[in-house]
């Protein structure tokens, strides 16, 4: 896998209160506004997760996936991880899980281009 194909971040999976937090990397060579990023799906141990209450967290901001599309002036620095918070999850710290993430980007200077990315990894909850 090339560095630009990586979408599951180095910080992996962690627990924060009743939520799981998954580190995500931006699959492009440059920073992009969050409006051009789409969290298209998450599976944990083979089951698709309902993302209705999921939030993207970055640098003190927190957006629902529905709000993400309006963030045309909030930039995801390409070297940073952003985090996907999944509330109401019971996976215990120390347990291992098969995680699949789908993350799409639409580079804002190339009309109509959408790049689909999918990555799976076995992650231990920190």
């Amino acid at each position, binding site marked *: 896998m090339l560095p630009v194909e990586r979408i599951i971040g180095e910080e992996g999976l962690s627990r924060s209160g009743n939520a799981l937090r998954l580190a995500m990397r931006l699959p492009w*060579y440059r920073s992009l506004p969050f*409006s051009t990023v789409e969290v298209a799906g998450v599976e944990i141990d083979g089951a698709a997760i309902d993302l209705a209450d999921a939030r993207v967290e970055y640098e003190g901001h927190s957006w629902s996936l529905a709000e993400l599309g309006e963030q045309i002036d909030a930039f995801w620095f390409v070297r940073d991880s952003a985090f996907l918070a999944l509330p109401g999850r019971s996976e215990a710290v120390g347990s291992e899980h098969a995680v699949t993430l789908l993350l799409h980007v639409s580079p804002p200077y190339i009309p109509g281009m*959408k790049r689909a990315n999918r990555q799976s990894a076995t992650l231990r909850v920190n």
Partner: protein
Amino acid sequence: MTEPTGPQIGVTLYSFTNEWLSRRFDLDGLMHEVANRGLGPNIEIIGFQNFKEFPDVSDGFAEGFKQLVAQTGLNPVSLAINSDRFLRPGQQPVEDDFLVEYHKRQLRSAKKLGFSLVRYQFALPVHLLADIAPYAEELGVRMGVEVHAPMWAGHPAVLAYREMYDKLDSPVLGWIPDFGGTATRIPPSLLDAARAAGAKESLITLVQQIWPEPVPSHEKAAKLFEHARRDGHEPAHIQAAALAFFILANNDPKSWAEMVDRTIHIHGKFYGVSEDLVEEAVPYDVILPLFRDGGFTGTIVSEWEGHAYCEADAFEQVRRHQAMCRKILAG
């Protein structure tokens, strides 16, 4: 400082995208590495790749960057800015006023960081140049639109820009050729990467058959997808092979001659330079003399794009590319 009498050599940090994304280097470390290896002193930086505070850098951030420049002895010749008009995917482009201000913000940051030249893109509707160029003139920052594949000297968008350049007659507006638009073949290293990803030889053959056809790149890409799907190739393999249609085109290398007079900076795009200093896809021996003999005295930054499909040693590739350029320019 003496005035340059010919093309200068440099590097864009974009060449080190793999090293950057994998966090092997931060900006301080990467600039020191480039300086220590003698790959500068002239450098280009993509604002949205290497500067966390882009598009609006603070005074403190700019000061830190200037100190880094002073420490490393590098010369920041070009800042690549982006003409991001499609910020809401699937919806209308952003309003003209927003896009004009978006460019001005980046121009201000360029000035603050110590760059006197920016790269911008054809995604900027040409009529908005009338609003932006006077601001760049005030700042004393030159603007070069990047002529990137599939574009070339005769492309309709380039002709429309040429007409506007003639009309505005601004001293700050120019071209930045990117040689990927005039490749003679698909880089063998790209095809090898597709093979390594599992693409079958029949798919490789299909890509090579379609790539030189004299039709627009997006039509060639569509044809490849249609035929490859019909033949049962896997989507991931088709995606790997189709990269050739998005980053390269086979326009006439000699056509750059028409653009030399307004060329202010150059992206020396390349994919793989051999130990005996030959680039595998772009005919530098044909292209570089056009700029040298045409009086170009700006900088050619080495732009290795093999990172889009492989993890070869970018530092070594840039070293070879610069050696090749020097050899051809001296010839």
